[in-house]
């Protein structure tokens, strides 16, 4: 049951991009195309899984007072690995990521999961948490990047769809705009799903229906 919880948390319930609104900097900067978003998502997922595993293994060794520098050191190691790997094998992605690749070190999602989850849980759960958080980040990035690429450039994953473009979505203002709209729609849909599940559960148990206050509107 806990694995299911970890999965739902990472993908939807605590989706780092759409629910926790973490790592906004890279989300806004790199969602100009679906492919860049996907690459960034995979890079972050890799770093998340590896750093979560190491932090979880070292959780009883690292002194409490210096835990943040220690986490950053672990994260920075894996970011450097990703950086060197991309530079050698996927130079196009390396070029389009620019400064945002080394900035994964200070991405709040990774530090947040190390601090909030990996340093308190066993290795297996920490690895799963890193995987699903990373996948949650990836699908949100690809969604935003896809919308912006289709509307802003008329392409999807580099494949030309039509000539019609709205340059607004390719600009920085369009990044904020699309991000906000996607968050609003996600929260709307997610709240509707949660409410219907609650109603179903309540009617199954024959208990009186108590509607909870909506978290966000």
């Amino acid at each position, binding site marked *: 049951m806990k694995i299911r919880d970890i999965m739902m948390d990472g993908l939807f319930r605590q989706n780092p991009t759409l629910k926790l609104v973490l790592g906004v900097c890279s989300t806004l900067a790199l969602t100009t195309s679906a492919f860049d978003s996907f690459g960034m998502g995979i890079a972050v997922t890799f770093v998340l899984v590896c750093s979560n595993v190491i932090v979880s293994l070292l959780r009883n060794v690292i002194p409490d007072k210096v835990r943040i520098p220690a986490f950053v050191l672990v994260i920075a190691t894996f970011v450097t690995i990703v950086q060197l790997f991309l530079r050698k094998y996927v130079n196009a992605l390396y070029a389009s990521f620019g400064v945002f690749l080394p900035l994964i070190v200070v991405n709040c999602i990774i530090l947040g999961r190390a601090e909030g989850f990996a340093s308190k849980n066993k290795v297996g759960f920490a690895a799963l948490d890193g995987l699903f958080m990373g996948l949650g980040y990836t699908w949100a990035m690809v969604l935003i990047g896809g919308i912006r690429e289709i509307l802003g450039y008329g392409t999807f994953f580099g494949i030309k769809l039509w000539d*019609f473009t*709205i*340059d*607004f*979505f390719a*600009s920085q*203002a369009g990044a904020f*705009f699309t991000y906000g709209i996607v968050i609003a729609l996600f929260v709307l849909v997610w709240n509707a799903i949660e409410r219907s599940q609650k109603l179903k559960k309540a009617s199954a148990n024959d208990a009186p229906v108590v509607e909870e206050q909506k978290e966000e509107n």
Partner: protein
Amino acid sequence: MSSLIYSSSPHVRCSLTTKKIMLAVAIALLPACIAGCIFFGWSALLVLALSTVTAVASEFVYLLIAKKPIDYILKQFDYTSVVTGLLIGMNLTANCPWYVPVLASIFAIVCVKMIFGGTGKNLVNPAIAGRIFAFISFGATFGGSWLAPNVDAINASTIVTGATPLSGSILAGDLSAISVVDLLLGTGVSGVIGETCKLALIAGGIFLVVIGVINFRWPLVYVATTGLVAVALNGFDFNVFLPSILSGGLMLGAIFMATDYVTSPNTKLGNYIYFVACGVLTAVLRHATQIEMVSFVILIMNLFVPLIDKYIVRRPFGYTRPQKQQKEGK
């Protein structure tokens, strides 16, 4: 005693409702619209109609999706979307493709006005946001080629595209290219539909001032500041004054867009700050970038309005400032 009504302020009411004010603004915009249609032909009328119809329709559709009852929707309709749609149409070139006014109107009404709660709750002027959306999104079809007006409507070959007088010659310092009278009347001036005939815009502005919708002071402050700063930036050459205030979208922005009730400050001092800052920014940014900046300036200043309103508040009636006490023992 029972006939007395207890209520909170405001106690003084007048017949000037939002509906009537917005209808008056729409009427005041008509001369400039008609002038634009005469200068640019049927395509201008098509653009204006498309943007207005889309603006009204998108407001209705949004309210229907939000599950408001029909009679509420009809009752709350107050012509603001008509004004927004007209202004967006007036801010587009006559030769733009059909989707530009449609998308700009949808963006202005849905994303700028209705999402924030409808009339009176929007953070920035919807028409300005719609214009800038169109400007950023379709810059290639927007800024590159301005349709020159069709002065003698019979000969279609007179329609040429080129730079507006402002971006073409005035900002480059060439004042002889176009006469002030032409700028005032809009004859032979290229640009967007609603901005070329300044006389029609001023006539609409005077109409609004006479029936008390806007205060004559604010457009004057804005326009005069822009002109004077432009004069100062050009080495105190007073020949620049009239061309710089009569070209571009300054009149349209100053009379109809910056004076929007929702997005301008509440107090007199606040309004002075707002309009002087608008004027200074317009002149300085025009000088620095060599393109028309009125809409961007109004958008920027709209965002400052909550700040101005926070720090500049009306002095309550009968309030006297407490005397500063001299520190003793110095």
